[in-house]
């Protein structure tokens, strides 16, 4: 984790200031940029392990940056956005950003997201673990087995596939579109109620309190995030 290079693209100096100091206190290195254009140049120069991207840059669209950046880098992108712009968020997440933080955010939240994304980014080169456990649930992907408190849990094929996609993208916000595409093989939004119903099934089978889930989290208006 130490020494990781973080690229911070944000046009407001005071926000850059406290984000930078928070990251540096964690022993991370920070490079700054004020615009999308500068950000792309800086990304090429410093090869960041994580990009923190403000959605309200003066020279536009965050989705465009992610598009360009994804052409050559798989490093995670954390988006900073204001509330009430769900649709901009969906655009930038669909383009390949990994997570977002709603302004204003606390330093604790910021660091938690940064750590989670850096872990994800570093874990990526290796193959995914064949066994994953969260809460009192154990998933063995090699055996296609799901157990809760030592008891086998029966999932339908679609539920299992959805669980597998969510676990493989743990910590990352998955938009409705992305999940529909990965699990159902379609990108249309018409059937998004199926997705919601199946996430509900997983919660009822795997969460202690399905109304207040701890692992299958809803990002309202955007999608879902699976948290280990």
């Amino acid at each position, binding site marked *: 984790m130490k020494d990781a290079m973080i690229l911070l693209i944000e046009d*407001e100096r005071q926000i850059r200031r406290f984000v930078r100091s928070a990251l540096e206190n964690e022993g991370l290195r920070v490079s700054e940029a004020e615009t999308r254009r500068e950000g792309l140049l800086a990304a090429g120069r410093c090869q960041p392990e994580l990009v923190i991207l403000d959605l309200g840059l003066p020279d536009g669209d965050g989705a465009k940056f992610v598009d360009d950046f994804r052409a050559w880098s798989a490093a995670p992108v954390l988006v900073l956005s*204001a509330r*009430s712009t769900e649709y901009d968020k969906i655009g930038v997440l669909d383009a390949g950003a990994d997570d977002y933080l709603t302004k204003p955010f606390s*330093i604790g939240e910021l660091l938690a997201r940064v750590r989670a994304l850096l872990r994800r980014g570093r874990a990526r080169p290796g193959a995914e673990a064949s066994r994953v456990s969260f809460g009192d649930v154990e998933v063995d992907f090699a055996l296609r*087995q799901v157990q809760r408190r030592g008891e086998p849990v029966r999932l339908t094929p679609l539920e299992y596939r959805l669980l597998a996609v969510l676990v493989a993208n743990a910590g990352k916000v998955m938009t409705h579109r992305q999940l529909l595409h990965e699990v159902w093989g379609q990108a249309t939004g018409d059937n998004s109620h199926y997705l919601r119903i199946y996430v509900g099934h997983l919660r009822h089978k795997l969460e202690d309190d399905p109304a207040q889930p701890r692992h299958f989290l809803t990002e309202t*208006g955007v999608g879902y995030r699976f948290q280990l």
Partner: protein
Amino acid sequence: MLSSILLTEDRKRPAGWRYGLAVLACGVVVAGLLPFRTHLDLPNTVMFFLLTVVVVALMAGRGPAVLASVLGVALFDFLFVPPRFSFEVSHAPHLLTFAVMLVVSLIVGQLTAGLRAQASEAARRERVARGLYGLARELAGAVGVEQVDESVARFLQEQWSAPCRLLLPTADEHLQAVHERGGVVPALDVALLMKVRDAQRPLQVPAGDGTGRQVHVLPLLGATRNRGVLAVALAERADDIGPLLEALAALVSTAVERLHFVEVAQAAQLEAVSERLRSSILSAFSHDVRTPLTALYGLADSLVVGPPPLPDQARDIAEAIRDQALRVNGMVGNLLDMARLQTGPVSLRKEWQPVEEVVGASLKLLGSALEGHPVRVAGLADLPLLEFDAVLIERVLCNLFENAAKYSPPGAAILLDAAVGPLTVELRVTSGGGGFPPDKLEKVFDLFERGHAETAVVGMGIGLAICRSIVEAHGGAIRAFNPPEGGGCVAFCLPRGTPPLIESEALPLEDELG
């Protein structure tokens, strides 16, 4: 010369003038021929009379041509055939000459007059067609119904000297004349006009003003609906005018309909532009206010958490700054939401979804704000799917939970439960504490109205007003009451509608998943 004669129509000259012309023409020929009577053979003379008949037929039509034929034979017999100045016939073959001359005159006269009538009819049609074409072009460029009315009135005046009146439906579906031209078409019975419009069939009624005019009432049939009526007062009964009037009515309805759709499109465009403007002003404002608030919150937070550790007092102050920034942010959010919801139509992104999910999301969003108030959730798992905008309903739930926590004594639980009705699903958030003041159960949803004005709890009285706007935009209703068990309750219902069918998926066989 010939064409100008041909194009002069019968009805433009009075009958006396035309028959007089026939008599005059015969007189002129006689006067011209008499001096040369001795030099001319009788057959030559006959030719001149035939020529006269042709000229009269061309200039004055069938009747005068018949008169000229008969008069010609009579004058020829009386003045040129011996014995002169008597109708007696001395030479029998002359009778044959007279008979043949009469027949030839009549036939030539009728043929010529027919030709002339055809030519003039063709010319008339051409003129009408040209007029219609000109009218069509004018109507295509018209930018208002007044202009349509004016063009049609001018066309009818030029073609048939016919006054007209164009009546279009008003907003409340009554017919109203676009422009009242005093007395040109007598005020027609409104019921009659409505009948024509609704039956969509033309009607002909006497004008009843002593001029003998017939009023043709034509419905203007649009592609989607009837656009009004056109009343034309024509002087004569013309059988072939029907199709022309129909063509005219079609032209006018097309023009009126086009103007109507232009108007609709402009209104829609205006609305879209103002909606876009509104939303971009609000998001620009939101961005501009939140940016310094984010900096303020983050900088204060970095003082609290970051090294080096602050003395206790300074740390408390930094925390206070951070928390106040968060509160201002909450207020700004509420104000912006209110501005968005109250300044125009709310655009909803409705999707079918379980209620449980949005409840979980709002509880997670509130996080520490509900500290000290355990939330109990009951009866959500079996609710049908509802169609709503998740972001907005999450907002409603957050506001209700926050409100409940604000006005409950510390440690009191907050209860969320649901009741399924035949048409709606009601969600209820019940808080502990004293409940709402009984006289304010209605007013708590008003903007800037606070249920507990005298308490020390901070707030602006926007939260519940936002809830009401959102719920009402979904076609639901919201109410507040104090349940007999104590505490206060806010309940809102959403329509059930017809949820999409869900194909259930069978559990796999044991050997498939183990």
